[in-house]
């Protein structure tokens, strides 16, 4: 069951990511990224991270990607054209990414024997346990990120407003 779910949603992730790579229109790329993120939420659930799965859907698929589609629609971004930069990027990009993938996969698979395996319902981090760590041991980093968000909001307003 776990394996089947993993392959369905892992496959959806990879298909979405490849679609992001090959689509030339940003809105199609954005939609395939939403598919990737939502399937990742299901994988988080399989790994027993229920709060993160919900946060993934609410924050990534529901807020960040809405902002992306909003900006794509606002700027009326069309299909991207091929320019002189494209050829060099293809020449470096595809082999580089393939080499990176080969290296990572080799490391993971050769050391995979030291890692255990996951089965459904074996390990679950409840929201309670997560928040205990977050608000007791890591209170300072949490507060610092809130300041970061405040700065980001102010920065976004300052950057996007029209200069008169």
């Amino acid at each position: 069951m776990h394996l089947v779910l993993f392959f369905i949603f892992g496959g959806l992730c990879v298909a979405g990511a490849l679609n992001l790579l090959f689509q030339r229109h940003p809105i199609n790329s954005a939609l395939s990224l939403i598919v990737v993120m939502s399937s990742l939420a299901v994988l988080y659930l399989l790994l027993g991270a229920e709060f993160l799965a919900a946060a993934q859907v609410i924050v990534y698929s529901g807020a960040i990607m809405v902002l992306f589609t909003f900006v794509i629609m606002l700027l009326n971004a069309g299909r991207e054209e091929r320019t002189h930069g494209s050829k060099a990027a293809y020449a470096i990009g595809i082999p580089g990414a393939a080499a990176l993938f080969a290296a990572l996969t080799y490391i993971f698979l050769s050391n995979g024997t030291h890692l255990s395996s996951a089965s459904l319902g074996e390990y679950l981090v409840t929201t309670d346990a997560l928040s205990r760590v977050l608000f007791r041991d890591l209170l300072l980093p949490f507060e610092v990120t809130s300041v970061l968000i405040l700065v980001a909001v102010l920065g976004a307003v300052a950057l996007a407003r029209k200069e008169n």
Partner: protein
Amino acid sequence: MVPISYYLVLSAILFSIGVAAFLIKRNIISIFMSIELMLNAVNLSFVAFAHQWHQVSGQIFVFFVMVVAAAEAAVGLAIIIAIFRSRSTLNVDQVDLMKL
């Protein structure tokens, strides 16, 4: 039963596709989206390791990555709007001057 290494390989696949998209894409919004894809790939490996060692801190990491990604998206998209306003293009090859 799914070995944790499968999850790690999936995360490697997603990360590599993100790197390739980052290098190949010419539209600045698409480039930004491939960064988000790479962040997501790394998040998956964090959650997988959290499951491996039964440690909550792996998931806390993902939580912080999400927060930072949200902040980054807000600022990044504001920068993209500012660029489009001054250059009226989204192609990174045409945004190569330091001054307006």
